[in-house]
């Protein structure tokens, strides 16, 4: 370890959602005077509006802090924030790999939650020194001692002298900084060895091209160097290197082993700079890349269509722009008989999907129709190859299928004991396989289940919350593809099949789902001049049916006293309403109908 390295600390903050990660990050920024107090707007690291509203970090961020310890020694603290949601587990793991330690925030009123554990395990996997921090001690219901006990018993790390803070009130933040310096190891790495930089984030800037955030593990990188992305294979000439200061990028001469910073190299596409990839020198490459790189693949797919078909081009442009900063977003053109031209988009998970949808609507002012999300099924046709099917309308009919498999996840649910029964019932109902149950303490339990992902992407999370009065927490990771008896459920309106409504369901669940979706569709189909039968079918067999009664009365009986304006306005308004409708064959449907499968109430 060099003298320089001994004064660097690279750390992340990990926590369950809402345990105060971003607030603590802000306080640390304040304390290290990276930002004047008055400039801390609120949760500086979360740049996007959406993140602020939802209180979660979507993308990793990093910032370099200068800290002078009480003994007068000057330190560089590199804080690497991590996304706080299960959809972004891989990104979290890469950010952690860029660090030597992690602050594990635990809410003093809530204790350990599913993502606390999930994140702690990721940190353990990355060989990080974990520094527990108990937050929200200002709240009346805070129970610091109990949470200390939990941390020791459940995670198995000493917590006796861990800082108990209130990030909100700015209480005991100096204790946290002391701990970072004293407990987290300084980085190692040979400045003269062949270059190895771990990419933990990147984003597209219209002036600089892609800005790549890296942790230099070995070697030294300077502007003008010819670099190679080891997984992608592409080579670039470094334009600048520098560090991420609280208010923006700051150029420097070089980045050396142990340091965290950015590289720009006129890179046009974030897809070239995948998180987890290793940057090395083209002329003196490292023998092998850093371990753990994965090409992240979307887990959830949905069709996204412009409500106004004329805006197809705008939607494409918007998706392309978002993809510049989000290599995990996949899309390709798709045509639906019902919805016209749109895109089949792949997401890491439901949250990722919601974020993309919201950004498309807010930042690009698009009205969208989104079909129900689907996972990717592996289907082997008789005498054929295994196909990966991400669109239910491409799912073959039962007699063509030799074998079908669906993705299974390992789920961990932490809940107060009171709700265990209801949650086990829920998991059972969602085709879960019980693995085990651990008591975290007298009041809380951790449940392990294997669950089909397609049971989770509908309304599982809402059901989980409603059955536990909001107390249960969920974490999951992909396990494997497993053979399953799946059928394609089709919906017919007025006798015509609507491709965008088809979806895949387990054979045993088909009847119940079909019935409930038919009911939901009924609510989303306004009455027309004729009766509209809604049928759910597997192949040619109808398994559920509802009827939207014909519209009988829609008339202004009295048009009197010469007030024409009022009647005209009424019809104009009605016309406006109709423009929002989608015409499916002879039937008009509200745009919400396509999400009807998502909004099934927990029963």
């Amino acid at each position: 370890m060099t003298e320089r390295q001994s004064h660097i600390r690279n750390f992340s903050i990990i926590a369950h959602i809402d345990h105060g990660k971003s607030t603590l990050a802000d306080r640390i920024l304040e304390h290290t005077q990276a930002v004047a107090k008055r400039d801390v707007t609120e949760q500086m690291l979360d740049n996007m509006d959406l993140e602020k509203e939802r209180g979660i970090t979507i993308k990793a961020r990093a910032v370099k802090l200068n800290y002078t310890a009480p003994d007068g020694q000057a330190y560089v603290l590199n804080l690497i924030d991590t996304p706080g949601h299960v959809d972004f587990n891989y990104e979290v793991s890469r950010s952690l790999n860029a660090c030597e330690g992690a602050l594990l925030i635990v809410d003093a009123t809530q204790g350990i939650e599913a993502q606390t554990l999930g994140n702690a395990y990721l940190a353990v996997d990355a060989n990080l020194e974990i520094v527990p921090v108990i937050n929200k001690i200002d709240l009346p219901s805070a129970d610091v001692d109990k949470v200390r006990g939990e941390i020791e018993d459940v995670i198995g790390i000493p917590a006796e002298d861990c800082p108990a803070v209130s990030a909100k009130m700015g209480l005991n933040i100096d204790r946290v900084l002391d701990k970072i310096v004293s407990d987290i190891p300084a980085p190692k790495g040979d400045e003269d060895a062949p270059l190895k930089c771990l990419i933990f984030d990147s984003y597209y800037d219209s002036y600089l091209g892609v800005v790549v955030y890296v942790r230099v593990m070995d070697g030294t990188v300077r502007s003008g160097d010819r670099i190679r992305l080891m997984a992608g294979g592409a080579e670039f000439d470094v334009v600048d290197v520098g560090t991420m200061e609280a208010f923006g990028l700051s150029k420097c001469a070089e980045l050396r082993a142990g340091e965290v910073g950015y590289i720009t190299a006129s890179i046009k596409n974030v897809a070239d700079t995948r998180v987890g990839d290793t940057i090395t020198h083209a002329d003196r490459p490292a023998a092998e890349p850093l371990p753990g790189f994965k090409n992240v693949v979307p887990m959830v797919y949905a069709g996204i269509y412009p409500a106004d078909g004329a805006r197809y081009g705008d939607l494409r442009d918007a998706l392309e722009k978002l993809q510049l900063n989000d290599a995990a977003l996949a899309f390709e053109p798709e045509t639906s008989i019902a919805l016209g031209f749109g895109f089949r988009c792949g997401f890491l998970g439901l949250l990722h999907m919601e974020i993309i949808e919201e950004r498309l609507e807010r930042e690009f002012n698009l009205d969208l129709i989104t079909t129900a999300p689907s996972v990717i099924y592996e289907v082997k046709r008789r005498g054929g190859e295994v196909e990966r099917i991400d669109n239910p309308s491409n799912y073959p009919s039962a007699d063509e299928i030799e074998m079908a498999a669906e993705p299974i996840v390992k789920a961990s649910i932490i809940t107060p004991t009171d709700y265990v029964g209801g949650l086990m019932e829920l998991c059972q109902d969602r085709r879960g396989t019980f693995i085990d149950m651990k008591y975290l303490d007298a009041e809380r339990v951790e449940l392990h289940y294997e669950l089909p992902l397609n049971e989770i992407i509908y309304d599982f999370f809402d059901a989980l919350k409603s059955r536990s009065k909001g107390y249960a927490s969920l974490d999951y990771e992909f396990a494997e593809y497993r053979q399953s008896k799946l059928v394609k459920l089709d919906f017919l309106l007025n006798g015509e099949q609507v491709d965008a409504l088809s979806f895949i369901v387990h054979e045993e669940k088909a009847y119940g789902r079909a019935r409930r979706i038919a009911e939901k569709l009924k609510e989303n189909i306004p009455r027309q001049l004729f009766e509209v039968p809604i049928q759910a079918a597997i192949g040619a067999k109808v398994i559920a049916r509802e009827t939207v009664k014909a519209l009988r009365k829609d008339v202004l009986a009295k048009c009197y006293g010469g007030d024409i304006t009022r009647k005209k306005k009424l019809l104009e308004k009605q016309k406006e309403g109709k423009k929002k409708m989608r015409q499916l064959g002879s039937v008009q449907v509200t745009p919400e109908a396509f999400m009807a499968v998502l909004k099934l109430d927990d029963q």
Partner: protein
Amino acid sequence: MKRSETKPLGLYVHIPFCASKCAYCDFYSFASRDEDLQKHYVSALQLQMEDWASVCRGYAVDSVFIGGGTPTVLPPKLLHRVIDAVWRNFSLTDDVEITLEANPATVDLRGLRKLHRAGVTRLSMGLQSAHDRELSALGRTHTWAEFEQSFSDARDAGFDNINIDLMYGIPHQTEASFLKSLNVASLLGPEHLSVYGLKIEEGTPFHVSQDTLPLPDEDTEYSMYMQCVEYLASRGFEQYEISNFARPGFRCRHNLKYWSGGEYLGLGAAAHSDFDGERFAALRDVAVYIDGMELVGQGDTIWSERRAIPEDERMSEFVMLAMRLRDGVSRAEFTARFDADLDSYCGERLKAYIPDGFVTFDGDRYAFTTKGMYVSNYILSSALPFDYAEAEI
């Protein structure tokens, strides 16, 4: 000025006073016996007529409609001042139709005789239902017996053109009770019947209590309407508009103006006009109206809306209103008026409703069938452009 050079005009005079306000009514009217206010209001009406008299020189008034409210709650002296002012300020045709709305128990034989002599040619009487229980649920203050008396008084006073207003879809009503109302009303022998479906309007007591009102269901209401059309046809009443039925020769000239795009001038608070290319309406406020008329230079403060209607908007209006009529909208008339083709404007889209029996087309006229009339908003909002810039002409 020669007769051939004059244009026809309808006059509407609004009297916003009532004996009491009905629970379903959202017209601009209120219960008032404040004679001082009424006097001021009538004076204001006279002033407004004097103002318009010169503008309307080029027009021959062939229809006057005095409505409300209940015009007959005015003291006879005031009501006659209104009627006299009409005669004095406008040029009326020889065959002018002057309709007066009258509620039972607000008129007696003597009063009716005087009104007849003053030139009123047509009475429109609000019955709504022949069942006292239904009447009281509506907030009507008269009984069936009182109506019968008033109707016979009207006949005795010399009125040979009388309309009766009825309603269906009202609280406590059944198919049988509605048909009974229709039956007894038609047996009185009126020349005209208006039969309206109850529509619960915001701001009315019915709107507040609608969840608890014992209303007939939608299917029953539909059946009431269909039976009404059929029954009245059998009694010699032609359905000439969605809610209006008349013996041959007795269609209401005034309302026809609204539906066929004729010009009309509304006088009084809340009255609507379509005059010289502009639509305008007075505020629903008697005080503003009286001040506007009485104070010098305040005449233009009374309008709630006033604007010229562009031609493409007129087209939508024209079709929308004409389609209220049994005879529907004529391609030839549309072309004559707008120099545009009705088929490309909306006819092709209307044709889509022919196979299912909602619309008919005879080569010139598109019209609704009875069941088509009952869903006319749905069809018109689909078939008409309304988005005026987009109209394909």
